[in-house]
């Protein structure tokens, strides 16, 4: 399994980003209520790396991330937040850390800060991902049968074409009545989806999307507003 790109830890790459900005983002990470439960220090033992699938494939190390965070190395954390965190598989194999850290969850927090602050690298990492976010936020199921198209999964072979060619019939040939759908994983009531929209609004997720992908945000707002209005929610406050 060959490593892809070498991670540039020289600190030159983001030398033009003011230290104060990097520090601000680091403070935001530390302010997350999970922080004190996912990082207790680091022995630098590498046990997390031994269990880490991404470390086998990428120039990626949960040890380096935990270490940098534990030492409060603001510059290094900023570099990793940009160039490393998106390689993580979020499998949490690293939860076997003897220091009781969860490097995977440190990364979850770092990703969230990167997305919330609209970092260019976060936007790039999410490129091509918009349709997935759209699906989950607008329909309540993340993947749907109609996503199985040969052009989307060329590396899965001819069987994807078989499925897409027969999709309608094969869905109807499923005994559970809730599974006859093609655009959602299962049949979901309108009321359920509306409740989900309200959750996205009330928890600030819509604002987050606006910061990271404005086009997607506008489409989502259109779809949701129409549905919310139909259901009589036109004047709801989301505070």
């Amino acid at each position, binding site marked *: *399994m060959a490593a892809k790109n070498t991670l540039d830890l020289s600190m030159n790459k983001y030398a033009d980003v003011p230290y104060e900005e990097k520090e601000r983002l680091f403070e935001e990470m530390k302010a997350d*209520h999970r922080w004190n439960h996912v990082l207790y220090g680091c022995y630098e033992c590498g046990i997390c790396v031994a*269990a880490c*699938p991404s470390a*086998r*494939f*990428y120039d990626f190390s949960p040890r380096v991330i935990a270490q940098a965070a534990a030492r409060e190395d603001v510059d290094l954390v900023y570099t990793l937040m940009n160039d490393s965190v*998106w*390689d993580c*598989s*979020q*499998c*949490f*194999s690293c*939860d076997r850390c003897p220091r009781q850290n969860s490097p995977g969850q440190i990364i*979850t927090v770092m990703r*969230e800060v990167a*997305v919330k602050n609209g970092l260019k690298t976060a936007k790039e990492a999410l490129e091509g*991902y918009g349709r*997935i*976010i759209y699906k*989950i936020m607008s329909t*309540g*199921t*993340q*993947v*749907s*049968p109609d*996503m*199985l198209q040969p052009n989307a999964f060329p*590396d*899965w*072979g001819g*069987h994807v074409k*078989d499925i897409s060619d027969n999709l309608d*019939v*094969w*869905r*109807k*040939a*499923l*005994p*559970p*009545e*809730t*599974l*006859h759908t093609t655009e959602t*994983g*299962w049949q*979901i009531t309108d009321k*359920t989806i509306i*409740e*989900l929209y*309200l*959750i996205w609004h*009330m*928890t*600030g*997720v819509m604002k*987050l999307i606006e910061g990271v992908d404005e086009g997607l945000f506008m489409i989502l707002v259109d779809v949701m507003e129409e549905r919310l209005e139909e259901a009589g929610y036109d004047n709801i406050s989301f505070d």
Partner: protein
Amino acid sequence: MIHLPIVKAVDRKFEANPEEAPKEDIREAVLQLEKEGEWEVSRVPEPYMEVKTKYGRSKKIPVQKTWHHKSCGQCGHIPGYSTSIFWLNRAFGLDYHDPTDQTSCTAWNYYASATSNPEAQAAVAMRNFAAAAETGYFPIIHCGTSFGHYKEVRHALVHQPELRRKVKKILEKLGKKLVMPEEIVHYSEWVLAMRNRIAERQVLDMSMITATVHPACHYHKLVEDDAVYDSEIYGAQRTAIITSTLQALGIKVGDYSTWYDCCGFGFRHILVSRDFSRSFSVQRKIEVMMEEVNPDITVTHDTGCVTTLDQSQFAGKAHGKKVGLPVLSDSQIAALAMGAHPYKVLQMHWHNTDNTRFLEKLGIDHAKMWAEFEAEADKIRRGEKQFLTWEDAAK
């Protein structure tokens, strides 16, 4: 890759003592918060079954009155997975509810893109739990990631009064109560707890089958204390999930050196960086299983694992890798053992890797079975029938 000799994990049995557990029993805190009026706790319907978890604690598993929290990846792309779970419930005549008032846990997206936050994730979870409680049925979670994620949410809600307050307020706006289930139960725990009843109803001899098992990361690594362990299985040195079920059905389970490795799913990787998923899955899992065990099948219990291990083999084959190992869920294997139709129920045509040799070894005439499925599909194509029903599936 260097292959190390496998040191058998069965040499010593570990009997865990719950009194010596190194972690809190979060369920006690859940009940305490109910006493303090913070939330309601929905109880596992009686009579229930019991299994032991990592530190020797008992976990209640409902027999019936279950509210099936479906998985988007299972229902969307490998629908025989969920169909088999429902088929098993029906075969035992159990009362269950397949809700339409259910959203995905949305954790796949959260782990992939971070375009959400803990408050939203907790609200989505608690909306689903409230919807379950309204029906009087008890949630049983089909997806390994939803299962792990909901346990993380439970932990956060127990330990963060502020988060609890916010989520409660959101649910109030939706006209819903804050209800935490007494246990968070994965369907594979139900299959495991039912294994002897399944074996009693077994019609297909599976003793000639050798399997490998892949336990899902989010099942036994995330909130690790809540996974099922059994001193009779691997001496309780690792989770008993799936293995226990397969052994009850007479299947030999072969051990392999990378059992702890993840499948390569990666959440975002399977969607937008599949070079990683394919390489990892083929080289660290499938090839190792083939070289060390050469099994007839590999069995797992999560959406992402079935998908990644199965779909990645096509590219592996193109690269001349040692692949060709069918992948099924424990629910599909259990249903097959009890006589479920491989296409009408297990829906094996949605899987990628050729599974006909596995069926042949079991003495199943797959060509005939496929023709039976096709005959039903043709009726749907011609408009002679709308759907394939449970009654059709039983024929």
